């Protein structure tokens, strides 16, 4: 029974990691851009929600709704003003620019909010739980997991059912031909990064509601997110969800054996999957 409980906790945790990873997966699938600042942008989103909560006296869920368009704007601006300029054959410039951005965001947050760890005040819902057959599960983890499924499903619908999604796929597969069809890759990229940051804001809400965060929390989230994307396979959103679940379950079982092994177990699962399946579990696109 304890193992069933551990498995469930792991799946719930994996849902959170899938949320961290979904935005990254989208951007990576469309423009092969590796955003090393993604984790820090999630943490920035958490601080934005916290700021809106305290300034306007709103509940974090409402504050997050307000934060969504702001973060979309930030993503659009980031891509237009900065990242579009460094995309190209050479992978070094985008890597180094986002790496620099990560350091800038972390230290700007450190200056603005100090190194104290914070938490989003979600109220009594935080402690509530539901009996689910032989095990009980917290309402917040369940909500996180549900949101992860919903976000991945929504992104898939967007990707495969809309004109924008068609433009995304076309640009991903062949930017030159897409341009001939009247698509501007750069504005497509800007929208994609905007959407990625919208997803990051949803991730930020659950990050801040479930656990403490501080300005230095970004890089670790980035690693989990990346592991999920790579395990899932390039360009596959459901794969990213599966990747998140693999990391989450591995961490939960690691922690059950020895609390010090939680993070290590996740990393080892990543290495093991890559040794067996170098291109991930469900690759859609080729590099």
């Amino acid at each position: 029974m304890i193992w069933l409980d551990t498995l469930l906790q792991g799946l719930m945790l994996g849902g959170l990691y899938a949320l961290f990873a979904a935005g990254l997966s989208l951007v990576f699938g469309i423009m092969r851009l590796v955003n090393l600042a993604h984790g820090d942008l999630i943490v920035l989103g958490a601080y934005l929600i916290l700021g809106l909560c305290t300034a306007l006296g709103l509940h974090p869920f409402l504050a997050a709704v307000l934060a969504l368009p702001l973060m979309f704007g930030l993503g659009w601006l980031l891509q237009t003003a900065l990242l579009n300029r460094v995309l190209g054959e050479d992978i070094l410039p985008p890597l180094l620019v986002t790496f620099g951005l990560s350091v800038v965001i972390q230290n700007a947050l450190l200056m603005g909010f100090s190194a104290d760890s914070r938490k989003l005040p979600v109220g009594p819902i935080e402690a509530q739980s539901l009996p689910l057959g032989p095990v009980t599960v917290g309402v917040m983890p369940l909500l996180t997991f549900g949101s992860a499924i919903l976000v991945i499903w929504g992104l898939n619908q967007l990707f495969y059912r809309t004109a924008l999604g068609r433009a995304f796929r076309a640009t991903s597969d062949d930017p030159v031909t897409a341009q001939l069809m009247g698509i501007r890759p750069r504005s497509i990229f800007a929208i994609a990064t905007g959407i990625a940051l919208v997803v990051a804001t949803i991730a930020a809400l659950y990050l801040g509601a479930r656990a403490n965060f501080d300005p230095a929390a970004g890089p670790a989230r980035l690693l989990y997110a990346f592991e999920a994307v790579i395990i899932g396979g390039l360009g596959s959103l459901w794969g990213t969800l599966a990747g998140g679940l693999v990391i989450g379950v591995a961490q939960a079982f690691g922690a059950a054996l020895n609390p010090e092994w939680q993070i290590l177990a996740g990393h080892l699962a990543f290495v093991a999957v890559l040794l067996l399946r170098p291109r991930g579990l469900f690759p859609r696109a080729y590099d």
Partner: protein
Amino acid sequence: MTRKTLLPLILLIAVPLLAALPVIGSRALVQDLFMVLCLLVLALNWNLLAGFAGLVSVGQQAFVGIGAYALYACVILWGMDPLAGLLIAGLVAMALSAPVAFFAFRLHGAYFAIGTWVVAEIARLCLGQWKALGGGTGTSLPKGAAQEMWGAETVRALIGGSKAAAVDALTYWLALALVVVMLVASWAFLRSRMGLGLQAVRDNPVAARAVGVDPTRLKALVFLLTAFGTGICGGLLFIQIGRISPDAAFSLLDWTAFVIFIVVIGGIGTLPGPVIGVLVFYGLERLLADFGTVYLIVLGLIGIAIMLFARRGLWGSFLLHTGIDPLPLSHAAPRAGSANRSF
């Protein structure tokens, strides 16, 4: 002729000046410059990886930490001399870089960057489990160990002062020696057959393969050799620091982020780039030392600006605007008729 004499000439002037520092300068300055020299060693190694071999690693702190832990194990657990431990540190880092390469080389480009970072995290978490070396909280080098290492007595007799000052001077000279060896070795390597192959792969992988260059073999070789240099540097750093913990030994900020900024600012993919970069880095640090986080923000912004407006960094821009290359890595065109002789 100037091409061949310039590098020795610069080294002949700069090295004795720097070497005299522990005799004439203050101890604080010696400690400062020790750190600068070590960062330069790390930067030269990272530049070989990222700038020449195209291997953008965000996990070189793995080899700093592994080298440092190997050294502490040698000294604390097996009672070896720290100087002998330094060599072991390099060898252990190189030996462990082989399985790391086996894993990380399955990943390309940005995947590779994340893969190496994960490896560094795994190494940090594993060594945090090593209870004999203090586990997660770390441990100190026994007080006498550094002060009684080979050469420390001689140095003390030479420059006078306290035992601790002699250790500072000795580690400083070792760092300086490491920089000189790294510079000369990189220059020789990059002008060798293998180095030319490496640059050919960087500039045009398809053409390079067509003339018989094996990119994977060359890249693996660079990965192993830079792990050796980085491991030795890690050991040396933590002899001087005197205390180790997983977080300090595997610090992404100290041993990789700073190093990346140094190389990017100076000029990635150029040999003098890291030297220029480390000078700028040290200047900025002195200028903004009192502001803490602002310093890091400025560093990040400069890195971004360089990538936007001058991808080859300060040295690359200098080459571009003046057309003068005092330290060319290319070979002079063969004189007429020599082509026939070489066959």
